[in-house]
């Protein structure tokens, strides 16, 4: 176990190194001079431009810049926003709970919906129940989540007036008010995930139901429900676990459009703002954070495999 974790740690470091290097170089490759974006139409003097340039370290070579950033961040100092002066680590600390809440709600809703739908589709394969649920899943999969979100806003905010569509409230400032604002974006995110998950569960379940041990369980006179839940579900959930891990990571970093749409002060919204302002250190900081979480989650998923399939435990 210790060796596994050590191995993972090494892998995490390698991943982070690659991710930071790539984002650093991509930020440098973005068209347009960051100095132009930062100064905008303000009164520009060559001296001012020079100061911004040296503050950002843009007058130094790329590798040197990357090296000093890496050195600082290894000591826990991710720098501060050039625009607002806020510390990047503080900014992340403020925004992560918001995004994490959305991602959590979305994934949990998606799994709760997807597992029964997937099982039903596999159990009734080719029958009308399967046709109907597959069609519904296909629809959910084809509609981008921001369209769903806009649709929700139109019904629940504009027409019915039940749910507010902006002005985020933190859970600490009122759980119910927070829930009212989180439910629409989370559901919009969940529907797509649900579609992906239920397809996986259905496909894996169909394969599992062909297994001899399922036939053997039938020959024991056990009920179909028991066989599905006790014998077939666990062997059918390995790929589901994988994709939950991957998509949870993706949701943490990639709910950009939904967060922007609902003006939710999460990581994605923060990232978009930083990119449009060329706030390099903020971009870097958020990217590193998301990459770290991503690798950690996938490590946890790998370790969870052993819980589902005892055969992996030994090797």
């Amino acid at each position, binding site marked *: 176990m210790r060796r596994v974790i050590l191995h993972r740690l090494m892998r995490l470091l390698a991943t982070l190194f690659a991710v930071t290097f790539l984002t650093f170089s991509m930020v440098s490759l973005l068209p347009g001079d960051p100095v132009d974006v930062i100064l905008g139409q303000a009164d520009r003097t060559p001296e001012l431009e020079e100061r911004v340039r040296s503050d950002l370290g843009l007058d130094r070579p790329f590798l040197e810049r990357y090296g000093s950033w890496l050195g600082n961040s290894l000591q826990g100092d991710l720098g501060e926003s050039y625009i607002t002066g806020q510390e990047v680590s503080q900014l992340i600390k403020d925004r992560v709970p918001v995004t994490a809440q959305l991602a959590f709600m979305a994934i949990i809703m998606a799994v709760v919906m997807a597992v029964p739908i997937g099982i039903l589709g596999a159990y009734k394969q080719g029958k009308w129940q399967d046709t109907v649920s597959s069609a519904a899943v296909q629809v959910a999969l084809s509609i981008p989540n921001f369209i769903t979100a806009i649709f929700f806003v139109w019904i629940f905010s504009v027409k019915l007036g039940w749910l507010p569509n902006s002005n985020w409230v933190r859970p600490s400032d009122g759980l119910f008010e927070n829930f009212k604002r989180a439910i629409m974006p989370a559901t919009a995110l969940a529907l797509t995930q649900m579609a992906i998950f239920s397809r996986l569960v259905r496909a894996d379940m169909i394969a599992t139901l062909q297994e001899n041990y399922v036939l053997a369980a039938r020959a024991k006179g*056990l009920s179909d429900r028991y066989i599905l839940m006790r014998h077939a579900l*666990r062997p059918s959930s390995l790929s589901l676990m994988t994709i939950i891990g991957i998509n949870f990571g993706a949701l943490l970093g990639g709910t950009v459009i939904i967060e922007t749409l609902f003006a939710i002060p999460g990581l994605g919204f923060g990232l978009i703002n930083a990119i449009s302002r060329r706030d390099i250190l903020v971009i870097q900081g958020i990217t590193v954070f998301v990459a770290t979480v991503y690798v950690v989650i996938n490590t946890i998923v790998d370790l969870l495999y052993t819980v589902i399939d005892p055969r992996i435990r030994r090797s």
Partner: protein
Amino acid sequence: MTTVSDALDQRTDDDNEALLVVDDLRTHFEVPAGSVKAVDGVSFSLARGRTLGVVGESGSGKTVLSRSVMGLNVASNAHSTGSVLYDGQELIGRPIKQMKDLWGVEMAMVFQDPMTSLNPVVKVGRQLTEHMRHHLQISKSEARELAVELLRSVRIPEPDERFGNYPHQLSGGMRQRVSIAIALACSPKLLFADEPTTALDVTVQHQILNLLGQQQQERGMTMILVTHDLGVVAGRADEIAVMYAGKVVEKAPTETLFAEMHHPYTQALLWSIPKTSNPKHTRLSAISGRPPDLINPPSGCKFSPRCPYAQNRCHEEEPILAKGVGPDHTFACHFPVGSPASQEAFDRNLEAGLPQTLAAAGRIGATEDLPDESWQ
């Protein structure tokens, strides 16, 4: 009013009558290319406490037969007709819900491959006790006690510890012992053993077969033992049914069958068993050709394209299962092995250079690819 002695009389009567009567059982699978006649008109009856050996090569329909009798053909394209009377109850057409009351308790099955018939993610203990608790309505601890006792009776060492193991922690032979224990858990009256030793080491096969036989005797179970190996059923079955292309082609009490087999296919199966008494490097006498297409089976006798004795009549007219000389000996052949007519037929084919006849005579090796119209 029935007295105790009446009831006892009744019981002995019951014990004498057959537990299982199968009549003209057919199981067809509908596929785009047509109808696969996996079991095509099989009839037999099996008395309580007896063992029927069902023998045939892969694709002869023996597995589908045992699953059809049990009602376990779950594929939606499978369709069974005919009659299966179990203990006086008709099983064909019986709703699945009611079949589930029989499965596991009245009849149980030991599957071929214990590597795949045990769920890898469920502990041995649960797989042993889940149907006990379901059918017998007993508590968890009672079930556990019974299960450990069962494991001991199928001679698994340290049964208490094994109870908490996963299947992959056991060897192949141990796993098959567990499968047998699972099948025996609710004390079924009828046990199907579908190639129970095929996936196992030769050294373990013997032990497993002996275990099955011993458990059958102790519990007075009726058993259907399905195998491709005549050697497996030789000392263990009371009666043997040889299947080919979904039909029984020869059926007889075991001793009778070995003493005077009449169907060329039975003979070919026997010949294909390697014998240690043979000199070294003796060519293994395989059966030429391949099992027939069950969608469009050959006309006449289904074995005729591969049969070393086949004559024109065999390709045109399907022989019916008829009584032989001995009691209860039936076979379906126009030129039964051992008759002068069959010897003539064999010699004629040998002269004509029919490949399967040459192979049977040991002149050439058996080949899988017989020309379709090899008799012409």
